[in-house]
């Protein structure tokens, strides 16, 4: 049986290649997801370990928030704590450090922007043992107030050498320095892509807005004293509100936070991998189904000569297992390459991720093998079991089995599922905020398509079966009707990818529409200023400068932080109290803006409902730096999407709890009588020193927001393209198999006068019909699910609904083109059948 299985595998090379390819792509995606996130995880581990090198214990302000990600910034310590620390026995050296925002400008005055990494400014360590992995590549450490060292990557990017002068933007403005040193970080030129400008400690404290303060104190233990002992010793000596942690604890904590973040990222990638695997398993299932059907005679013959059902089944499982194993191996190898591809894709949309040598964990290998082998075997076993049930003689009698029958109960269940799905999605769309119902509706819809697929394929073929019987469409339609299950399974592979693409497209388009509606609904600002890079912010100096412009009427600063309310993470905003009303209409539903002052807050109606709080009630916010603070609700507002948060504090209250003073946005209105163009010109001129600030009018702002939505859509579509490729392989596979199956028919057609072109046309149209069926099913389900999903995300700020009809139409057209392309090979094969061999009786 083994030899037989191997022979039958090798006898059909094309089929083998196509099947292997389908599994390989799916497995490659899964392994790529794991490899990419493991590699990134390792890169960060190395990074943090490098940062902590030489340091035994870290002293810093005690944080209320146990979650290292939410904590982000710890509150700075008073600098005299360093002296306290130095006095503790067992301390060999202790040094305070500060870190903050510093954006280096290149020689043209343009900011050196890393993709998604921060732009850091820091103090310079004078104790070489406490400086971690940092090392001077050239020059020397900055010692004077107008000196700085920059990271080697930034230096290379801007062409800076030791001795050059360079400008840096800080929270409070721009200053110029002489570069005295270029630093590297271990073997790498930068800290995971971040730019770094470091200064002599006192200068750094001043520039980073932390005069007399340190973010943390790095401590080295004396010889013979363990980090743990020293930590415990230090804990005794430290004042309340400070904590000592071993360096391992700190880097472990940071690494864990990053890994948590990467976990989400991995899950997103795995979702895409899952989609292509699902598509892949459809293709494999289909392939084996056709294979087994075609080999019914073969199987029957084997059975007739005495092979037991189990042996036949075993043979097929073995065959599938081998295909699965080979594909999994190939997929794993391809996955490592693909990981690099996805990384480049992310980099292309501005998400730069740090990297190191590709990490292939045992888990990745196990997952790849498991996924490849299990999916292939399961997809093969179902048709195989049904093959062994066929009585040998029956199979020998019927030459080409064409299972055109569709069970009545199957049709009924399928149609019921589709109806239920339509009802669920419609209800979810009407009720809004129905995420669960949306999910159920989408699942029911897909299940319905799977169950009722053959029926739908037949119905669709019925529509196409018009015109002359010899015409390509009619013949193609009838060939589909002949094996509707096969056609449906082939088409549904395409449906899966398109459903997700369309759902995402509808949500993206609705998001864009929401941005427009939002700005036209509540915005009163004439200009909106934001940092050009996603990680930076706008210096508060900008707002001060704008305040002095005659053309400017009101200026609003807006800062943004995470905190905890009622045990849930919440977005908190601090904004300029006096100008809120000038710059935006928040849609106050209760209370009055006049009562909004220090000690009170504005609460969104949505959060109010959740907290069951009203005007006059007290809301407690837990800040990561300062802990619990209570505020009285001054008013409730409706347009939370306008600011992107449900809790608004005065700038003073905010600053009292959050150290960073960078503005997330600054909004400006024009003084009366000043034209928009004039205002923009004036503001641009006034902010010449802040090239990292992007000034846009509401329309431009909306456009840039929409552009980033489009970019995400593009990213998702690119990731789903793999699933579509697998589906195309499936179409090719099905076509090739059915061409082989129909050799005699095709030969007969040629004998009675069908030209090669006519034969090709029939095959091509079959392909197009299947693709269109798959596409239309996907577009319909995807649009339905997308609408319901957009409505379900009403709370996330998607207030409008927009169905991008043009894009959806494009998808359908693309599917038709895909159908044409997929048919090229099979059609050529069909047109080359040997007429004589096809018509002579064997």
């Amino acid at each position, binding site marked *: 049986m083994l030899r037989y299985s191997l022979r039958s595998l090798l006898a059909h090379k094309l089929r083998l290649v196509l099947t292997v390819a389908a599994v390989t792509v799916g497995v490659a995606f899964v392994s790529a997801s794991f490899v990419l996130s493991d590699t990134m995880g390792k890169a960060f581990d190395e990074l943090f370990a490098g940062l902590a090198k030489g340091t035994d214990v870290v002293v810093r302000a005690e944080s209320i928030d146990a979650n290292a990600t939410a904590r982000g910034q710890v509150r700075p310590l008073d600098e005299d704590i360093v002296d306290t620390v130095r006095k503790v026995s067992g301390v060999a050296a202790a040094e305070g450090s500060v870190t903050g925002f510093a954006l280096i400008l290149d020689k043209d005055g343009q900011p050196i922007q890393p993709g998604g990494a921060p732009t850091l400014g820091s103090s310079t360590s004078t104790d070489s043992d406490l400086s971690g992995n940092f090392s001077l590549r050239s020059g020397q450490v900055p010692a004077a107030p107008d000196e700085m060292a920059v990271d080697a990557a930034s230096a290379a990017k801007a062409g800076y050498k030791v001795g050059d002068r360079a400008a840096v933007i800080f929270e409070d403005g721009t200053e110029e320095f002489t570069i005295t040193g270029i630093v590297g970080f271990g073997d790498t030129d930068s800290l995971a892509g971040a730019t770094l400008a470091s200064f002599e400690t006192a200068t750094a404290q001043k520039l980073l807005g932390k005069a007399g303060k340190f973010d943390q104190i790095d401590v080295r233990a004396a010889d013979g004293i363990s980090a743990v002992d020293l930590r415990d010793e230090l804990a005794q000596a430290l004042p309340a509100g400070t904590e000592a942690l071993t360096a391992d604890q700190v880097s472990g904590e940071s690494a864990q936070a990053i890994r948590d973040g990467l976990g989400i990222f991995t899950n997103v990638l795995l979702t895409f991998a899952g989609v292509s695997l699902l598509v892949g398993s459809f293709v494999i299932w289909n392939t084996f189904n056709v294979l087994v059907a075609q080999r019914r005679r073969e199987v029957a013959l084997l059975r007739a000569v005495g092979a037991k059902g189990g042996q036949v089944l075993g043979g097929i499982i073995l065959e599938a297992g081998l295909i699965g194993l080979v594909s999994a191996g190939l997929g794993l190898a391809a996955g490592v390459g693909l990981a690099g591809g996805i990384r480049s894709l992310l980099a292309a949309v501005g998400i730069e991720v740090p990297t190191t040598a590709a990490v292939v964990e045992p888990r990745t290998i196990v997952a790849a093998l498991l996924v490849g082998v299990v999916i292939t075997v399961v997809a093969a076993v179902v048709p195989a079991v049904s093959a062994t049930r066929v009585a040998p003689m029956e199979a020998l009698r019927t030459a080409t089995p*064409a299972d055109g029958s569709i069970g009545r109960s199957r049709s009924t269940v399928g149609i019921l599922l589709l109806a239920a799905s339509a009802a669920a999605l419609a209800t979810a769309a009407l009720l809004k905020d129905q995420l669960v119902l949306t999910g159920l509706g989408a699942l029911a819809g897909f299940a319905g398509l799977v169950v009722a697929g053959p029926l739908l394929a037949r119905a669709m073929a019925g529509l196409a079966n018009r015109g*002359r*019987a*010899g*015409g390509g469409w009619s*013949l193609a339609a*009838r*060939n589909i*009707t*002949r094996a509707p299950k096969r056609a449906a399974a082939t088409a549904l592979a395409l449906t899966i990818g398109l459903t997700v693409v369309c759902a995402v497209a509808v949500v993206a388009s609705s998001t864009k529409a929401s941005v427009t509606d939002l700005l036209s609904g509540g915005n009163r600002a004439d200009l909106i200023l934001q940092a050009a890079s996603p990680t930076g912010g706008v210096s508060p100096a900008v707002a001060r400068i704008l305040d002095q412009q005659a053309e400017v009427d009101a200026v609003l600063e807006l800062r943004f932080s995470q905190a905890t309310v009622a045990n849930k993470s919440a977005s908190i905003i601090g904004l300029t109290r006096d100008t809120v009303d000038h710059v935006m209409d928040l849609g106050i539903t209760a209370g009055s803006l006049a009562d909004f002052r220090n000690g009170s807050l504005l609460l969104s109606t949505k959060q109010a409902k959740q907290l069951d709080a009203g005007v006059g009630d007290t809301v407690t916010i837990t800040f990561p730096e300062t802990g619990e603070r209570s505020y009285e609700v001054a008013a409730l507002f409706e347009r939370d999407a306008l600011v992107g948060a449900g809790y608004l504090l005065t700038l003073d209250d905010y600053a009292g709890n959050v150290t960073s003073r960078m503005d997330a946005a600054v909004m400006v209105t024009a003084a009366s009588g000043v034209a928009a163009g004039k205002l923009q010109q004036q503001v641009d001129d006034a902010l010449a020193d802040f090239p990292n600030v992007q000034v846009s009018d509401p329309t431009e702002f909306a456009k840039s927001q929409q552009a980033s939505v489009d970019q995400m859509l593009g990213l998702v579509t690119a990731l789903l393209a793999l699933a579509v490729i697998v589906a195309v392989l499936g179409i090719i596979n099905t076509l090739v198999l059915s061409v082989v199956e129909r050799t*005699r*028919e095709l030969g*007969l*057609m*040629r*004998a*009675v*006068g*069908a*030209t*090669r072109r*006519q034969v090709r046309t029939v095959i091509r149209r079959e392909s197009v019909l299947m693709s269109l069926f798959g596409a239309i099913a996907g577009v319909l389900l995807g649009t339905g699910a997308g609408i319901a999903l957009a409505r379900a995300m009403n709370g996330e700020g998607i207030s409008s609904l927009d169905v991008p009809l043009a894009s959806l139409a494009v998808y359908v057209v693309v599917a038709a083109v895909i159908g044409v392309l997929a048919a090229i090979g099979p059609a050529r094969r069909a047109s080359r059948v040997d*007429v*004589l061999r096809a*018509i*002579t*009786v064997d």
Partner: protein
Amino acid sequence: MTSTSVAKPPRGTGQSIAARVEQATKTYGSGDAAVVALDAVTVDFAAGAFTAIMGPSGSGKSTLLHCMAGLDTLSSGQAFIGGTDIASLSDKELTLLRRDRLGFIFQAFNLLPVLTARENITLPLDLAGRKVDGEWFEKVIASLGLGERLGHRPAQLSGGQQQRVAVARALATKPEVVFGDEPTGALDSRTGAELLGFLRSAVDDLGQTVVMVTHDPVAASYADRVVFLADGRVVDELQAPTRDGVLEMMKRLGG
């Protein structure tokens, strides 16, 4: 008779030639393994006549038919349909020749399973994008007694009915020649006799030309003329054959 004029000869005169091969040789394989299926055969088939080709198995009957019908190519020699030299045609031209000027009936598997009987019959016309000649169609259908069955798929028809549909398909384009390779081979004698009756009347009443390969002396007796092949050569022929005459000839050639 050796004219190779390109002009299409008039049909149904009994004098003009519908199909002809000249020094037709067909070799399969090469070297020691070479099989000579046709060995310099020269024979012509009169228009408006019913000709049977007979001979032992492996004598080259099917090969001759295929080469005349443009389904296969000769190794050397020439084949003509009317005045057209088949060897000079491209694959596309051959296809169109088959579609527009020839008809076929095979021993089995004549019909596309997805098409109804009517659609199978009009398939060559549909492929050509030509309109069905209603009067002719009715005439053919009526003479074959297929009226009731036109909406059925091949799977719903008996073997005899399927072969009749195949005959109707072969006649639908009013072809210059209808070729049949053992069209009754898979039928019982009664059904076979019916079918042969139709072919006979197609020649007599509709003026068609039929060339048919058969093993059956009874079938051959329906023809106007029988050509005998053996080892790839024409060895003899009979005009206005009878069953006994054919049997006798077969005995003589076989012995």
